[in-house]
């Protein structure tokens, strides 16, 4: 694989993968906060 292709693949998959993964984490945490809400837990 030539360097240019490698660089483009790294940018797309790396940045895209990071955004997607952290987006998944944020969705999961929103759901978890709804399943385990703060107020009910503290009571």
């Amino acid at each position, binding site marked *: *694989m030539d*360097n*240019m292709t*490698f*660089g*483009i*693949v*790294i*940018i797309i*998959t*790396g*940045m895209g*993968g*990071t*955004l997607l*993964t*952290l*987006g*998944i*984490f*944020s*969705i*999961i*945490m*929103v759901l*978890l*906060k709804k399943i*385990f*809400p*703060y107020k*009910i*837990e*503290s009571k």
Partner: protein
Amino acid sequence: MFDAIMSGLNGLISGFTSLHWSNPVMILVGLFLLYLGIKKNFEPLLLIPIGFGAILVNIPSAGLMEKDGFLRIIYNAGVLTELFPLLIFIGIGAMTDFGPLLENPRIFLLGAAGQFGIFVTVSLALVLGFTKLESVSIGIIGACDGPTAIFVASKYAPHLLGAVSVAAYSYMSLVPVIQPPIMKLLTTKEERMINMGAAKKTVSKTAKIIFPLVVTIIGGIIAPKGLPLLGTIMLGNLMKECGVVERLTNASANEIANIVTLLLGISIGATMDGREFLKFQTLTILALGLLAICLDTVCGILFGKLMKFFTRGKINPLIGAAGISAYPMAARVVQKEGQKYNRQNYLLMPAIGANTGGQVGSVMAAAIMLSVLQGMGIV
């Protein structure tokens, strides 16, 4: 008799006769790192052992990095095995509160945007003639995270470890100098004055306990090559949040982290032999590292502006600059810059949320990059 005396005296002058021109230069570099750490308080926990290690290894004929030298033993035991950065990561996880991030989970995306500089710098390093693995090790400086940079560089380009580590830790401490001009350039005065309001405690203890498990399992399945990094930081955080292993948490955050920091720092300094360190490529690496962090800041702020647009002005774009892993330095910079334009504006908590998002983001970025490389058959 005379020959024996001369041989003995020869042992006393061999240090001077073995001096290479690069040795005194690197001793000065080591002294400069000590100055930065002691006088300027720039990341002293790392720069002082690194600076001292650089001085030690550049005194010739001592053999500290030879086969049985004590620095070589420490280096082989903890750096080549990647053990030291992982042990430090347990401590970092035990010291980090992800609460402000979990209160506003969409800030995760700022933590992702703040890693853009890593990937662009990899491409630039390739253009400048570095190999693929060297470029990856240079690009990871943009993670703005010492243990992550050391983990990647020690495995894939150990001959660049000294330059990469010094760049990573030095630039982390220079964040208050690097970021403000970029923040001012990319935001308007009105944007800098946006008040994000007070944070509300909306995260239950159960959610805080489940968070590190979610990141480990899902992040590990997506990017298995980075599981050592992910798993260790999340183990530390799980121990902190569950609250039932206080002794382990305290030991991880204090004794273990301190001991390993000392040994890691001196090991990194030991790689800064003048013959290896004083090359044109070291300057190139330092320049690329600076560029990576600038690009991280640019992308973080631009993404912050995008989020401000979609939230109809609720997000202050300045917090995008905190989406890097320099915790809590970057968050403090955002707080300080926000207060310059609006003294009633307390951006610290949202900025800490973005900053801890950047910690997760930098680890995930490294993990994903390594897994992509594995998929391409390069590692």
